[in-house]
């Protein structure tokens, strides 16, 4: 019997628009291939050599079961180092870190090395890289458990109760990662809900606080105590800005872009100060901005500079999505960036590793900052 059979080959037609099938660090085409990443990568390698060496950590009394060292997604930072370098050593180390995290993730989706059910230990992005690279189903299941646990966090703020940008960031990252993994519509709705709640706090603040470009909440809600002054934390906002940035890449969400622009305004107008003496002329991020009660702000440039890179990344993302960039905004961004860039000046010490103290700094400094090298170039060109 004779048959006529029509066969059609279709590549890329049944993909999810803009959601990546394989892990890749994001960057616009117009700067691809023109970016110097060495200043970012080489110091990161030194720190990673320390943070992945159990003997070195033990010598500094950092036992594997010390929970706080894992904060801010160590697996994510290590996977990004692999994606930046192509060195399979970092892929293996990132997988080790992911497996350790999964092994200490309870059935209810919370991290088992701490007693409390604490959402800030919810770190799904590194596991998503792990799943994308290997198809590991334990990672996929863990992301699902993290997302389910994160639903316990209430993203809206009514002027009372505990609320921080850090927890909001963890809940958003959990929902966004689960959405990217599954395209679950409820997860996307959860993302939208968290963005809407954050926008409301930013544009219609509680207690008649004026708009200041950030999701204002009270000192009492953030730190405890009795002070009801409005606060925002620049470094925690950097954590929150990152999944918002990611969501804007996937969806072109106007809410996400508006939030990033507002956050940038906050950093420039309220979240930074000019240092003195050794830090003379240098812009530094405040640890916590306490509006209308500056006595409650703990200004310490030696501490504050520790968050210069992550806050620079936040400002860079905000400026990138802004229509215009003023000379002053560019100056603040480049000044915040300087401490990150100047690390590479020490590379000629020929040491194999550099200590990171506290150990969790590796996560906060490198998990949300991988765009910095190209952001610098993109902003300098504007």
């Amino acid at each position, binding site marked *: *019997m*004779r*048959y*006529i*059979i*029509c*066969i*059609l*080959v*279709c*590549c*890329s*037609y*049944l*993909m*999810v628009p803009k959601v990546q*099938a*394989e892990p890749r660090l994001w960057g616009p*085409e117009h700067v*691809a*291939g*023109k970016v110097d990443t060495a200043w970012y990568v080489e110091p990161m390698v030194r720190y990673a050599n320390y943070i992945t060496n159990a003997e070195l950590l033990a010598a500094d009394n950092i036992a594997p079961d010390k929970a706080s060292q894992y904060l801010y997604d160590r697996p994510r930072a290590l996977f990004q180092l692999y994606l930046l370098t*192509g060195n*399979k050593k970092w*892929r293996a180390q990132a997988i080790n870190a992911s497996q350790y995290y999964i092994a200490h993730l309870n059935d209810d989706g919370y991290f088992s090395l701490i007693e409390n059910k604490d959402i800030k230990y919810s770190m799904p992005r590194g596991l998503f890289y792990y799943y*994308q*690279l*290997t*198809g590991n189903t334990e990672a996929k299941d863990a992301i699902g458990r993290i997302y389910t646990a994160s639903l316990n966090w209430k993203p809206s703020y009514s002027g009372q109760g505990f609320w921080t940008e850090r927890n909001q960031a963890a809940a958003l990252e959990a929902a966004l990662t689960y959405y990217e993994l599954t*395209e679950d519509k409820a997860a996307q709705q959860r993302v939208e809900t968290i963005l809407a709640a954050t926008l409301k706090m930013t544009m219609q603040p509680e207690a008649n606080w004026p708009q200041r470009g950030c999701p204002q909440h009270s000192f009492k809600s953030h730190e405890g105590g009795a002070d009801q002054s409005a606060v925002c934390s620049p470094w925690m906002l950097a954590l929150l800005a990152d999944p918002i940035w990611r969501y804007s890449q996937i969806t072109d969400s106007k809410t996400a872009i508006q939030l990033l622009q507002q956050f940038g305004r906050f950093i420039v107008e309220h979240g930074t100060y000019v240092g003195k003496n050794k830090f003379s002329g240098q812009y530094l991020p405040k640890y916590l901005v306490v509006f209308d009660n500056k006595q409650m702000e703990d200004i310490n440039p030696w501490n504050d500079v520790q968050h210069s890179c992550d806050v620079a990344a936040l400002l860079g993302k905000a400026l990138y999505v802004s229509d215009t960039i003023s000379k002053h905004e560019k100056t603040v961004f480049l000044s915040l960036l300087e401490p990150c860039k100047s690390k590479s000046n020490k590379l000629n010490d020929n040491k194999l590793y550099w200590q990171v103290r506290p150990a969790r700094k590796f996560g906060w400094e490198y998990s949300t900052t991988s765009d910095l090298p190209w952001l610098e170039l993109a902003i300098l060109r504007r």
Partner: protein
Amino acid sequence: MSDAESLARLLEQHNVSIALFQEAKPEKLKALPIKSWQKHCEAGLCIASKLPFEIEMAVSRNIFQGYGNFAQFYRISLADNSFLIANVHFETPRSALESVLKLGPNSAAMRILQQDRALQATIISEWAQAETLPFIIAGDFNMPVLSPIYQQYFSMLGNALSEKSQHVVKYTKFTRWHGIRIDHQLYRGALSPLSAEVLNLPGADHRPVLVRWSN
């Protein structure tokens, strides 16, 4: 009209019997309004067919420390015989090409990538040499006919688009800097191509390749 409706309309317009997809998501295949078709999706490679088929085997990217399958084999049943289809998606040389374009070629990465691509080609080529049934190897090869890997491993097979296309320009993928024919339908055995064309369907950087086959 949604992307799914556009694709379903194209399948109907061209009386397509079998559609092969690469870089595909199962939920997207399910959403296609072609309810009576038999469908299967696994790790990025999908098929929708009016003709009954069985899954033969899959080859994973695990061996290259990658994600997903790069080949999925199906047995298509006709009334009095059957033939095989290999749905393939070879490794992209994109990172190596970009490395060259940046004027800073990462030779180690390029070498590894070329080795992976050659190994994938070897696996499919050896399967083809051992197979006694008629077969079609179709999909995103990520290599043009003149590439060394294609010439070494696939030039002994028929290429429907090379032999039967009515048009000189046969690009199947467009990027911002080049057009290239890297999607192919190769064959050996009793099946022969009657016509081959590259269709125009918005929504992806590749274009669909349609071949009419006769047994």
